[in-house]
């Protein structure tokens, strides 16, 4: 199968397949599925657009909610994002994945709206709060002194193999996880949604958020730990753990 990359003439919405030799100049070769989707979108296939909206709308709303005041504004930001996607499809060059491109537009629009609402959290604000330097796990769960200092004082209790399946089938558990995600600071929420909810590759997340991979993992782990802790409280109650 010949590899193709999507490019497009400015004045046309029709996709032009280009040979493999031209992929390098575009910077990134897209997967066959992605190429097919883009061709369908550019051919005006409403089913393809519906698929795209169904797949990403929820995550876009969640991310927008980290930047703006309320759900109504977040929905406006996401609506604007989709309009920009529709307008920009003809110019999309495949230098990143379609998903990364869409989330990049959302981040730009959400930050812009957040700044206008004076709700934008700058990186220096985040740093000054010390979140980046705090430990992910509550330090009081570890021995504080003695020969076993730094080892578990209150270790997590094992989950059985069916626990994840049961949790996903439980409305209360799903609500607990969603609530934990919603209450994350914007900087943690962005990485969690992109990396774990949407499955964006680490390098792409770093490029989108303009952070280092080390920084990504610091944030990602804090976010995952908060969700894990919410599950732990759901399963055991707050009194049984620290």
């Amino acid at each position, binding site marked *: 199968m010949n590899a193709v990359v999507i490019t497009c003439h400015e004045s046309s919405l029709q996709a032009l397949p280009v040979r493999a030799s031209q992929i390098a100049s575009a910077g990134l070769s897209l997967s066959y599925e992605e190429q097919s989707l883009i061709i369908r979108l550019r051919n*005006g296939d409403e089913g393809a657009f*519906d698929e795209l909206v169904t797949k990403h709308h929820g995550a876009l709303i969640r991310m927008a909610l980290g930047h703006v005041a309320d759900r109504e504004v977040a929905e406006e930001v996401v609506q604007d994002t989709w309009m920009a996607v529709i307008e920009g499809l003809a110019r999309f060059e495949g230098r990143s994945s379609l998903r990364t491109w869409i989330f990049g537009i959302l981040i730009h629009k959400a930050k812009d709206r957040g700044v206008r609402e004076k709700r934008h959290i700058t990186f220096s604000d985040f740093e000054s709060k010390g979140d980046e330097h705090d430990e992910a796990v509550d330090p009081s769960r570890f021995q504080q002194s003695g020969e076993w*200092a730094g*080892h*578990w004082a209150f270790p*997590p209790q094992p989950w059985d193999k069916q626990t994840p399946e049961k949790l996903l089938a439980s409305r209360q558990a*799903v609500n607990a*996880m969603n609530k934990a995600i919603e209450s994350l600071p914007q900087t943690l929420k962005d990485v969690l949604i992109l990396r774990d909810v949407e499955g964006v590759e680490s390098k792409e997340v770093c490029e989108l958020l303009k952070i280092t*991979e080390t920084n990504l993992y610091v944030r990602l782990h804090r976010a995952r730990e908060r969700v894990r802790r919410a599950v732990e409280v759901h399963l055991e109650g707050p009194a049984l753990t620290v």
Partner: protein
Amino acid sequence: MALNPAEQSVPDITCREVAEWTSAYLDAHADDATHVRMVLHLAACAGCETYVKQIASVRDMLGLLPRACASPAQRDRLRQAFFTRQAPPPSKT
């Protein structure tokens, strides 16, 4: 002179450090020395093994959470905008 086995051994890592490195470890982003120390520690520490498994489960569950959908009205608006933008211009006669 050859080092004795104790001197050659990898320095231990605490549970507290393991907990901080867990996500990087799971995504194979920890450096080689940390990775080795993690592997050795996890082989002997049930608490940390449980913790790493739970973070992996959380990571996997996050990708499977039910997704919020666009409202029917929003979806209609977007579909209309898509249709309008993508429709070919009327041919000149």
